[in-house]
């Protein structure tokens, strides 16, 4: 008999090496949350700089009150799918609020952000269609594409000319064509060059979906995401987003203006065969979306905080992965052992960031990834910069010096 776990041997060994170096990066536990930007981790008060809590809205008193009220009124869970007993007035109200926020005719709420991508890809594309996806797409996009059964063509990251070339090779009569982009790419924080892609859209003809998971609430004069910032919403057919970032809850959505959009509700397994999001989560999301609309100062503060961290890192001589400022700021590190070492040193000094290692990163880079929050104070941002100076900038210098010594010896 072949043990099913045999195939996991190498990842188990890799994990064990990580544990030898310090904390468990994939099993870190926050014992207590003090605020959107503070937690007790390993007994220490820690500044959170890797939580995607862009608006810092998770402890907003109005959102919490709305959640408590929904718990009292609707109970702890819906115990049913959207297509059975799991659609409450609250779910409809959230869909309508989001459609209004996005300026779209239709919106469908899913139970998680991951499922929103699964549900939209599988609801839009079928086995006779082709999905063209950016090479750096999030795993939920890859998995949704696989679930759809469509033919999957991967194009080079942010390269509209590469997409153009691939579309030119494709027979437009062979089936529907869906192109998938992201507003802000989660690992390194760069944006899709939307205008260039829309030029290709006008040339070849396809339907376009933009996943605004990291840009919803963050970019654009209305906080609707990259297409809002670029003034190109009319050329984007479908928008996907999540509640687990700027909205501070859990869930996700798909939106669009297609007259048959609601057909996704009964043609998408990730929508049909899972319980609907819990009443409290829907209620806090609804309150949060209203806040995003009423309080644009949150995203202005986020932009200022992001700029401060970006400039601070650059003044330390650190190399970030992206030249454009966004709330995702990833610092390039030399290799896996030193990245693990620096991540642990930062954690012990009291700041949590994400550690990102291949194959989960573009171009096999090792990264320390920060995500900025509107709830960070200037002092928080300065503390993060200071600790990156102590740990990462000086660590890199030590490494350089070490390598020079090695070279001299050789």
């Amino acid at each position, binding site marked *: 008999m072949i043990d099913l776990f045999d195939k996991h041997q190498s990842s188990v060994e890799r994990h064990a090496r990580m544990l030898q170096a310090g904390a468990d990066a994939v099993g870190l536990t926050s014992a207590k949350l003090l605020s959107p930007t503070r937690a007790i981790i390993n007994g220490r008060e820690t500044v959170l700089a890797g939580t995607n809590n862009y608006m810092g809205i998770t402890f907003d008193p109005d959102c919490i009150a709305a959640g408590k009220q929904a718990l009292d009124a609707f109970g702890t869970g819906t115990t049913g799918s959207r297509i059975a007993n799991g659609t409450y007035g609250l779910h409809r109200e959230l869909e309508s609020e989001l459609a209004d926020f996005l300026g779209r005719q239709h919106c469908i709420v899913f139970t998680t952000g991951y499922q929103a991508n699964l549900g939209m890809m599988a609801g839009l594309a079928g086995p006779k269609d082709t999905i063209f996806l950016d*090479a750096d797409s999030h795993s939920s996009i890859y998995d949704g594409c696989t679930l759809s059964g469509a*033919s999957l*063509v*991967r194009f*080079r990251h942010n390269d509209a000319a590469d997409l153009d070339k*691939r579309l030119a090779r494709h027979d437009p009569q062979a089936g529907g064509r869906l192109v998938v982009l992201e507003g802000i790419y989660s690992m390194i924080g760069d944006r899709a060059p939307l205008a260039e892609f829309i030029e290709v859209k006008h040339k070849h003809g396809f339907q376009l979906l933009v996943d605004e998971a990291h840009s919803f609430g963050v970019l654009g004069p209305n906080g609707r995401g990259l297409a809002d910032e670029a003034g190109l919403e009319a050329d984007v057919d479908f928008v996907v987003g999540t509640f687990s970032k700027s909205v501070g809850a859990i869930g996700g959505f798909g939106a669009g203006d297609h007259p048959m959009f609601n057909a996704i509700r009964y043609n998408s397994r990730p929508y049909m065969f899972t319980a609907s999001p819990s009443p409290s989560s829907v209620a806090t999301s609804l309150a949060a979306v209203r806040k995003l609309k009423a309080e644009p100062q949150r995203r202005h503060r986020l932009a200022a905080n992001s700029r401060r961290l970006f400039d601070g890192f650059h003044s330390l001589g650190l190399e970030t992965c992206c030249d454009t400022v966004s709330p995702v700021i990833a610092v390039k590190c030399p290799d896996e052992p030193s990245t693990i070492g620096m991540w642990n040193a930062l954690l012990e000094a009291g700041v949590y960031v994400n550690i990102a290692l*291949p*194959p989960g990163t573009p171009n096999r880079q090792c990264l320390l990834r920060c995500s900025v929050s509107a709830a960070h104070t200037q002092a928080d941002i300065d503390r993060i910069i200071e600790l990156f100076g102590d740990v990462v900038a000086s660590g890199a210098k030590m490494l350089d010096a070490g390598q020079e010594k090695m070279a001299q010896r050789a």
Partner: protein
Amino acid sequence: MTSSSNEIFAKLSELLMPFNSNGIELKPDTEISVDLDIDSVSVMDFVMEVEDHYNIDIPLNVLADTHTMSDLVKVVEGRIAQG
């Protein structure tokens, strides 16, 4: 293998060089991901180089059933024939 498949094998071997950091000898039955110990993203990146060289598309679903060097040679031959 035919002369054309020999040529494709040689070209694939050349394109695979930057990804074959352990310098594993490539044979028709070499499993690209397993024997060369390269992750799934690197395999997709290598296939992009192949697509560019031959001006073809190899959809990811086709790649899912492509394991060995000779599997990939057959896929490339088939895609070139499709034009």
